[in-house]
């Protein structure tokens, strides 16, 4: 099955462009990325449960997440800072997967209204090096991201 989230990774570069269209008004799409309870739901999957340890959704705010498996073991932690936070339009943040060899990324999220009921998310993710980007792409990164976006669509559809 073709993934709905599209990833464009130019050869030899250290960045990625990710686009996804949602059957959601842009306000709901933005809400899914900035409302702590919804972020936790989107980040939670059949194997792990996500929790936000910190979330200050504002310019110069910061965040920290933690995911645990069924036995309560911590399997994933991430954190970062918000450089820019413009409701329904743009978020620029740093992102780091803690204790992982992928370094720190700069992420630019652009939220665009396509029609009253549809919207587009564009993510530009910049890595410390091309090697780190390519290493991440060897993992099931595209599938994982697209599945998270599918979950986001499903969760937010109920709030329409």
């Amino acid at each position: 099955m073709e993934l709905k989230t599209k990833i464009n990774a130019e050869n030899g570069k250290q960045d990625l462009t990710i686009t996804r269209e949602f059957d959601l008004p842009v306000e709901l799409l933005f809400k899914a990325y900035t409302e702590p309870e919804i972020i936790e739901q989107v980040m939670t999957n059949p194997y792990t449960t996500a929790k936000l340890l910190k979330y200050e959704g504002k310019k110069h705010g910061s965040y920290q997440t933690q995911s645990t498996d069924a036995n309560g073991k911590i399997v994933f932690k991430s954190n970062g800072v918000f450089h820019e936070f413009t409701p329904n339009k743009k978020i620029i943040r740093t992102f780091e997967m803690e204790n992982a060899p992928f370094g720190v990324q700069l992420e630019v999220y652009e939220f665009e209204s396509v029609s009253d009921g549809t919207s587009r998310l564009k993510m530009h993710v910049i890595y410390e090096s091309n090697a780190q980007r390519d290493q991440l792409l060897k993992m099931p990164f595209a599938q994982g991201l697209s599945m998270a976006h599918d979950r986001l669509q499903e969760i937010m559809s109920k709030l329409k």
Partner: protein
Amino acid sequence: MGLKTKFNAEEGKQDITITREFDLPVELVFKAHVDPEIIVQWKVQPNTTAKILKFGGKKHGSYQMQSTDSQGKIVSTVSGVIHEFIPNRKIIRTFEIENAPIGVMLEFYDFEPLTDDTSKLTMHVIYESGAIRDQLMKSPGGSGYTMGAAHDRMEEIMSKLK
């Protein structure tokens, strides 16, 4: 003057690596980057006065600095957030010149002691695109000379504190 700071910008890439060795212990080089009173003495463009509006020198902190000319007119405001802050070792932060069309940069500063009295700073600066990087490097403010001259100033200021 200003040439002790080395720039490496690979063709077609969107990042640069800047290295500089100082005749200063690593603690003093780090201090020059995190002490607001010292920052305004060297991280300033010629003929302007710098003022720190905000400086949260810690992990997940943020900063804002404004430069004014002799008439008090604002010349530039820079700001960003601090992702990582490890004293005498490492700073990772974002950097933006407000209202300038050059996007946001992610900057990695690595501080290394070489001997008790000398140290090395390695900066890795990542831009949103290669085009922005190349445009900035052509501008007078973004040239290696300007940063090298600032590093010279910093070395002179900090030498007095040895």
